[in-house]
Structure formats: C-alpha cells, structure tokens
C-alpha cells in the first residue's frame, strides 16, 4: 500500500504522519510542495502544521502550491485524499471540500484530547470502527468549521459529515464543542466521499505511551478499506 505525504514549507506534522503511516504498513513517500508530479500512490495525506506560517489565512497560501493541481486531479479521479488540521484547511481553500475554518470561538489555540462521534460508517476511508466514539487530539487555532445553512443541509443529506465533537458518553452539545464549529462538525467528506478533512490528529494517538491509542483504529480502518 502506497501513501504520499505532501510537505509544505511550515508543515510540522509531516514526520509524525509518515511515522504513523509506516507503522500501519504503508510505504510512504514525502512529496515536496513544489514538485509537479505525484509518485504512484493509493492515498495522499496533507499533514498538519502551519504551511506558510498560516499567514493571510490558514491553508490559503499552501493551496496555491504547484502540487495541489495534481492533488485535485487525483481526487477528481476518485483517489483518496486525507487532510489533517492544516491539511483540512488547505483542502478547503483549494475547493476540494466545502466550507471554511474560522478562528476558534474563544480566540485561543486549543490543544487537548477530544471525543468524536463517528457519523459516517460507509465511506471509502473507513468501514467499521469497533467503537462509535473515539478519543483523538486537537491542536489548532482555526478549527471553527463554518458553512452556510443550505450547504450544511446538503452535507447532512449526503452523509458528508465524518465526525462530530462529543463528550465521553457521545453527547453532542455546546459544551463538548471546543472551537465553535457549526453543529460540532470535526471533519467532512466531499461529495464522493474520497476526500476527507478533519481537525483532530489521529497520528498523535498511535501507541500506549501517548495519551490514547484510538488513532490506531483510524489508520487500521483506512488500511483495511484500501486492501479490499
């Protein structure tokens, strides 16, 4: 199984993502943002970090990189594209995913564990989680997902919502919403469900020494889905 992690100037979770992918059996390549060709790959990951310092708007300048045209082509042909945190922001700015990520409601960077309710169990990334609530980590300043009402309705109708922030019991409420996201949305798919953007970082929870292991579930699911 082949994966590619795109490295932008200012990416800082690129190594962590590569470590995670390799741990779960991917053969990974690092792809420089200025490259004009993608290697052969089954999965493209846009990692977290601060591409271009998040200057102007987070993800905006990264989305103008040369390689993004190829990523868009790949996605349009049905290839799997995953954006984590800053990667999600880039996908949104590149127009591959709907909506925008605004500044967190309380105007502060937030780094903490969160619980996520899995909203979609039949997509091209993961088929079946053993649990329907998982614990992952967030670390961002701009994770406040926003779409206009008509688009929100479309997301709901087409089953494009991937995760919602919830509490340990799966309750989705204002108090389990860390950043002000509309309807507690933590991750969304595109129309075809082959592009996924999410704020939480599964790659930071892949062994027992870290603050949780549910990231492993996530990667195992992708691998499983790709191998069938």
């Amino acid at each position, binding site marked *: 199984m082949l994966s590619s992690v795109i490295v932008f100037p200012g990416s800082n979770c690129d190594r962590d993502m590569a470590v995670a992918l390799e741990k779960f059996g991917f053969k990974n390549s690092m792809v420089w943002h200025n490259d004009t060709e993608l290697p052969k790959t089954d999965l493209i990951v846009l990692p977290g970090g601060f591409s271009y310092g998040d200057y102007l708007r987070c993800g*905006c300048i990264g989305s103008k990189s040369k390689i993004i045209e190829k990523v868009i082509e790949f996605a349009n042909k049905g290839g799997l594209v995953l954006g984590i945190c800053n990667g999600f922001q880039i996908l949104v700015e590149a127009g591959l995913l709907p909506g925008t990520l605004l500044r967190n409601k309380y105007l502060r960077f937030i780094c903490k564990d969160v619980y996520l309710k899995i909203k979609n169990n039949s997509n091209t990334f993961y088929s079946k989680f053993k649990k329907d609530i998982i614990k992952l980590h967030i670390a961002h300043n701009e994770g406040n997902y926003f779409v206009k009402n008509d688009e929100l309705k479309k997301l709901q109708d087409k089953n494009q919502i991937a995760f919602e922030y919830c509490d340990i019991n799966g309750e989705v409420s204002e108090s389990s919403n860390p950043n*002000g996201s509309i309807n507690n949305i933590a991750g969304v798919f595109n129309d075809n469900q082959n592009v996924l953007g999410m704020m939480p970082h599964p790659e930071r929870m892949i062994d027992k020494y870290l603050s949780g292991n549910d990231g492993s579930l996530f990667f195992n699911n992708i691998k499983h889905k790709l191998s069938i």
Partner: protein
Amino acid sequence: MKISIVVTLKKEVLDPQGKVIQQTLQNMGEKAVFNVRQGKYFELDLNENNYEKAKIMAEEICKKLLANLVIEDYKIMDNS
C-alpha cells in the same frame, strides 16, 4: 503606486474578535462603542501608475488570494 484594500467578514459571519474588543472597551469604560468589526488591511505597491488599471489588478488579486469570498468581502480604497 500604492493601493489600499480592506477585507472584512461578511455581515452574516460571526466576528468573535470584534466582539471581544467591544466587550473589552465596555469594561474599560468606553460605553459609547456599541459594535466593533475587525478586518484586514493591505497596502500593495504596484508597478502601475494609472489608478484605474491598478484598481483592476487589485480586484483580481483580492479574488485570487486576499479574500475568501465564501466569508469575506473586499473593498479597494480610493486613491488619496
């Protein structure tokens, strides 16, 4: 020539920064301020001396880069 641009959040988009500033001003005793909105300001130095042409260029740049039209509006300031 220099072109100045202001990019602001669309009215229907919540502006938490503006809100916090307004509250802070209230707490500081500036009771007359009942609303604050924050936006971005850009000053471009262009190799172009015709204001109308420069303005067209700036519009392009706003659409291509400076503003996210999903949530933001832009305004090119008058030459002054």
